[in-house]
């Protein structure tokens, strides 16, 4: 896959607007050709700035940006062969759909018949043919998004940059357009870099998820890795789906160690080769919410190979395929178990019930 030359490398990229604070602070990142990469983070974390620097709408203060092995800093978007799809699309409001899509060809000096021929082909691809003569304001959000995508893709760029492409759509449409983006990326076979603050959007789409915070990368890797094995507390909490417990390491002996916190003690934690633990050190661990089993007190207790915490149920939310059970087991932070729907209703829990939340020791994940 890939059309060649669409691999991107950021080396020590920083961006500062005032010389003191850094919107982007020392980013190193490699994105292979033809990959779908999502930059994920809260607003103001610098993800859009990175996108705009790759697009050539801003220059980095320091560092190199390489596309296809060549340093592109200072080149304009056309020379970079990148195209950007702007947040809320930035369609030309006074031009028809066809003229919007053909705009890049018009400024490249193509004749009317040539550029309309190509625009019509592109409109066919994204199912816009019947809207060719409409103005953007006469289109729905989803149609506008397709126009924006078509306008960006018409120049056959090697990298397509998408700034919050789905944020202007309602929930339902967002999930549909998500699939469309993914299909489009496979069809075009070019590198997509997609900026979003929605976790589910990122992990649903991306080959590589880059989690950012305050101008820095906190973790970059395949979606599953970022979701299932977060490197640190920030990533675990931002991506969600994890319970984070903080405490101090108790006894460490050979194959076992324990963790004690304000509301729990003697949680067994796995010992990993390469990460030595010392008695008394502070440690965060993460356990996936769907790895947790809830047992009533007074049963058989914690099964062998598992460990757990005790707490009271503080809330129950029905989610369809599973039930979200909230507990007061993690001190200040929330502790949540996702219980499969059928299992939950075999023995329904209600608010105030005291339960034992257990998980297999080796399912816990140590955070740096």
């Amino acid at each position, binding site marked *: 896959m890939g059309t060649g030359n669409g691999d991107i490398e950021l080396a020590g990229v920083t961006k500062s607007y005032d010389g003191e604070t850094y919107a982007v602070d020392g980013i190193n990142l490699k994105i292979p050709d033809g990959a779908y990469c999502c930059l994920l983070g809260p607003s103001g974390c610098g993800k859009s700035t990175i996108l705009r620097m790759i*697009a050539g*709408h801003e220059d980095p203060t320091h560092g190199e940006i390489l596309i296809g092995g060549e340093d592109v800093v200072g080149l*304009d*978007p*056309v020379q970079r062969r*990148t*195209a*950007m799809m*702007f*947040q*809320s699309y*930035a*369609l*030309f*409001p*006074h031009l028809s759909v066809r003229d919007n899509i053909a*705009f*890049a060809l*018009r*400024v*490249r000096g193509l004749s009317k018949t040539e550029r309309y021929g190509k625009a019509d082909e592109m409109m066919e691809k994204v199912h816009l043919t019947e809207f060719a003569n409409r*103005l953007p*304001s006469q289109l729905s959000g989803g149609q506008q998004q397709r126009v924006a995508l078509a*306008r*960006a893709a018409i*120049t056959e760029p090697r990298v397509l940059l998408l700034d919050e492409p789905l944020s202007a759509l309602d929930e339902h449409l967002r999930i549909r357009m998500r699939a469309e983006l993914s299909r489009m990326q496979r069809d075009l076979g070019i590198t997509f870099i997609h900026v979003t603050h929605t976790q589910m959007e990122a992990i649903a789409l991306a080959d590589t998820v880059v989690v950012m915070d305050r101008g820095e990368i906190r973790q970059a890797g395949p979606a599953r890795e970022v979701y299932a094995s977060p490197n640190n507390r920030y990533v675990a909490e931002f991506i969600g789906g994890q319970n984070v417990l903080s405490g101090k390491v108790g006894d460490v002996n050979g194959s076992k160690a324990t963790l004690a916190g304000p509301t729990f003690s003697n949680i067994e934690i796995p010992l990993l080769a390469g990460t030595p633990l010392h008695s008394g050190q502070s440690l965060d661990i993460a356990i996936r919410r769907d790895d947790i089993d809830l047992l009533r007190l007074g049963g058989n207790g914690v099964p062998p190979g598992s460990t757990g915490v005790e707490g009271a149920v503080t809330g129950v939310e029905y989610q369809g395929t599973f039930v979200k059970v909230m507990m007061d087991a993690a001190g200040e932070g929330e502790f949540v178990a996702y219980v499969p729907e059928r299992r939950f209703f075999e023995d329904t829990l209600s608010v105030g019930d005291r339960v034992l939340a257990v998980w297999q020791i080796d399912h816990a994940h140590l955070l740096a």
Partner: protein
Amino acid sequence: MKLNRNAVGWLNVSPLLAVMVPFFIVPIIVVFIASIMQTDGFGGMFWDPSLENYSYIFKSDLTYRLYFETVKFAVLTLVFSAFIGFWVAHFLVFHVRSKLLAMGLFLVCTVPFWTSNIIRMISWIPLLGKEGLINRALIAMGAIQEPLEFLLYSDFAVVVAYVHQLTIFMIVPIFNSMARIDKRVVEAAVDAGASKFDIMRYIIVPMSKSGIALGAIFVVSIVMGDFFVVKVMSGGGTASVVGAFYEDIGVLQYPSAAASAIILTILVMLMVAAILRIVDIRKEITQ
């Protein structure tokens, strides 16, 4: 009480009607009636309806010369004020990064309008006159030997005064329509590979059209209906349409002045209609 839909409709337009009827429609009717009456030569008029006053105006060469002069001033003023207005607005919207500063500079544009029209116009005289600042400076620099005569009491001076007076009427609507251009739209054009010139002709000018048209309506209707600037700045050397019927009134020729006024009103309305024909302001604004 429930009003039927018709009554609600009339109530909605009543404020506009309350202004338009007494201040526009009634006077126009009065002027039209006067224009088909005859004069007794001493300021009195009597009812003997005919279009004689009109045919007299259309037969006179003077009419065509006057209209030519006035339309010439209108077009020249329009061209210069649109050019200056466009670039001032463009500077304020696209080059001044701070919104506050842009707003401040925009207000500075209106400072000259804190004094009266007449003072602003007359203040050109010491600048442009034979012994004026410009002539003396040029002579002192050795650029010219004799003072430049065309600076004052000439067509040039008339256009300068009009442009000075009316450019603000271009800046305001153009600024308004440009300020509504999303900066990301311009960025999207850059991303597509548009040069500065492309952005200007495909994005900024088309999207500022409604502002330019609104400004043009102001400028054209003001210049067409003015005689004072022409009178003062041309030094009496050039006449204007309104100037001519002002003189008619001076010699108590009310019916022919009224006929001229009706013709001028129709012409200005046609010019405004032509501007609106080129730019559909309603469509542009609702876009």
